[in-house]
């Protein structure tokens, strides 16, 4: 068993060596270094295209998904080795998408065979770019109060309403969207619908953020006709009609895991070792960084423990809330310290030297970490109710 895994490791290592171009081992510098796929996608460079296609053909855009759905069918242990080997050479992810992180896991759990065959393969091959329609202007932390309504017209719904904070909706091909289909039933009156953003009546408007970037949109649905089925065994909704909240809750769990794993302080190298190259650190700042590194390196161990437990079906089911809380708060602290270490150079907003204000814009972007996908305060509520079992409300 262990021999097989070591054999697998050396195979992966030599495959990566042969197929991951040097350019794809450099840190991501701007938006276009991330490949999102989709109908209108274009590659920034030949290396990006070559890397994506090599991974796609091998199932390595989604290594742990079954082969019949576009993955490589790796076991959890193999998946861990694959990620370790990717990390060892700083390989960029060949494909990023909400299809991989969110819709995919929901379909693997709740989807019909027909849905898996079609949608998972499209996601794995980077053909369709998805966005997520959850929050509404009046429903943020209290998501279940959402109002976007789909009126039942027999073989289709007519959907009206507005979503907000839909990531990259202006560039997405399809949306997975929470739509109320029963106004009388708060929790059991929501359907998890899938539809094409090119449908008549769908429009998007980017939201300019304090970072100066617009990764999120408002999405408007005005008499949008959504068919109930896209063919045999391919319903236009995940799970059952009116039971979309179960899917949404499942996915929120995944989103929290994802944010805690990628957005958190989950870095193997210490902050101090990165920033000290920029010059002499004030001793008190250095001390704060050392304290931060203690927390961040500890959190890395926590993430690893969490992932190991998840794969073995151990651990408390509400644990992702704790990781989301701790990871996002840590990431905000990380960027405060990066700003302090950077000094006036970190204030520059659009100079070439600053990479278009990367430090400042990232710092501002991280302020959303503890708001999106459930605020820190909601996470603390969940921990106190579900893990500590404290009384009330």
């Amino acid at each position: 068993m262990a021999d097989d895994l070591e054999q697998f490791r050396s195979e992966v290592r030599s495959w990566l060596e042969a197929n991951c171009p040097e350019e794809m081992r450099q840190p991501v510098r701007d938006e276009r270094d991330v490949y999102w796929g989709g109908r209108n996608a274009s590659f920034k460079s030949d290396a990006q295209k070559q890397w994506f296609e090599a991974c796609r053909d091998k199932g390595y855009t989604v290594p742990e998904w079954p082969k019949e759905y576009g993955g490589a069918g790796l076991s959890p242990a193999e998946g861990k080795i694959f990620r370790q080997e990717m990390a060892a050479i700083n390989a960029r992810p060949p494909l990023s998408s909400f299809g991989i992180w969110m819709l995919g896991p929901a379909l693997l759990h709740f989807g019909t065979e027909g849905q898996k065959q079609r949608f998972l393969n499209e996601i794995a091959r980077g053909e369709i770019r998805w966005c997520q329609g959850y929050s509404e202007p009046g429903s943020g932390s209290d998501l279940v109060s959402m109002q976007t309504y789909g009126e039942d017209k027999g073989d289709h719904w007519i959907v009206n309403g507005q979503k907000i904070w839909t990531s990259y909706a202006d560039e997405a091909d399809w949306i997975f969207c929470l739509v109320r289909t029963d106004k009388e039933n708060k929790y059991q009156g929501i359907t998890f619908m899938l539809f094409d953003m090119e449908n008549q009546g769908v429009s998007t408007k980017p939201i300019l953020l304090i970072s100066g970037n617009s990764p999120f949109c408002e999405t408007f649905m005005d008499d949008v006709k959504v068919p109930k089925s896209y063919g045999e065994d391919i319903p236009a909704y995940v799970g059952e009609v009116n039971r979309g909240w179960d899917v949404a809750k499942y996915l929120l769990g995944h989103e929290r895991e994802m944010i805690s794993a990628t957005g958190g302080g989950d870095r193997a190298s210490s902050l101090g070792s990165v920033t000290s190259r920029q010059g002499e650190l004030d001793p008190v700042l250095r001390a704060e960084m050392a304290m931060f590194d203690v927390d961040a390196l500890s959190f890395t161990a926590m993430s690893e423990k969490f992932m190991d437990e998840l794969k073995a079906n151990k651990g408390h089911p509400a644990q992702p809330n704790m990781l989301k809380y701790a990871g996002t708060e840590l990431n905000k602290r990380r960027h405060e310290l990066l700003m302090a270490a950077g000094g006036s150079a970190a204030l520059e907003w659009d100079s070439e030297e600053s990479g278009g204000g990367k430090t400042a814009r990232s710092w501002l972007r991280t302020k959303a970490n503890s708001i999106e996908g459930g605020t820190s305060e909601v996470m603390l509520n969940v921990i106190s109710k579900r893990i500590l079992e404290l009384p009330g409300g």
Partner: protein
Amino acid sequence: MPLYHDDDQAMLADSASQFMREEGAINKQLRHWRDRDCKDGFGHGLWEQFGEMGFTGMLVDEDDGGLGMGHVEAAIVLEEIGRNLTPSPFLASSVLAATALKHGSEDLRSRWLPGLIEGKSVFTVAIDEGPKHNPQRIGCKAEKSGNGFKLNGKKAFVLHGASADMMVVAARTSGSDDDTDGVTLFAVPKDTSGIEHDARRLVDSSMATHTSFDDVELDGDAVIGEVDGGREILNAMLDAGRVGAAAEGVGVARGAMDMTVDYLKQRKQFGKTIGEFQALQHRAAHLYAEVEIARAVTIKAAQLLDGGSEKAELMASVAKAKVAKAAGLAVREGVQMHGGIGMTDEYDIGLYMKRDRALQEFLGDQYYHAERVAQLSGY
């Protein structure tokens, strides 16, 4: 290796948990010996029971009659010790001294290990010479004298020094006080002429000594490892002890947190259970996160130590610092959330605060270890 306990380790955790809860309980041990002004600070009977349970020699190699287990296993026992505030010489004897003896000659091992394994012998270590942890500075001098050595100098914060049958002493055999090289470790038997213990009771009711050595004559075979080659063994001992102390701290933190969360579910004010107040819920939830993270990094550090990883040194310091932060938070929040009753001696929460304080200082506090994290990370 996954970062959770395997089946054997889970079984060990169950039996250690039950044993400490029953035999090592606060009323049976900590309060019992404290209220009798015990000069050892722990019970020898319990130490023999530790031997019967197989805890005392768990880190000792099987060839030497031990169980040949690792630091993950030792951490399991220490977490239960921490949770029950069980006073014992386990950390000093079975982790620190036992780690040093791994590097000792066969004569040394056969002289000292059987007593340890049986729970008859108590060991300690004498490293620091001032009130703050600073193992870099070794000023105690051991000079060649005939076939042996003559030891002079002073050590501070020697855990239960007056009760120890043997102490591992770090002394300088060449060079000056702050040199890395030139350190030698000695296994010094109790009652060797010229040793004087000035015993003090500490805030957590444990005993520690200021120990002075005045022309103490040691045989050449008291040397652990090589003459002038003690630094590496000392470092191994310190890493093991730090991870062990971190594990005990995790237990202290979890014990204090569990007590506090229970109290939040019982205490009523303003016609409500105080655990219903969000102001307290959020603080308790934040504490939970910190303690879980501290526990994760402690298991990680123990695994790295067992695997002989080069990252073990860094992660031992990360763990010691993180646990100090988390356990400190647990005991402070514990006393505060208990309100007035938390200030009384009758209630156990204050005992957790006292034990945490002593444990924080032992082998380096969060400031010492954060500094070390910075240095090991190259800044």
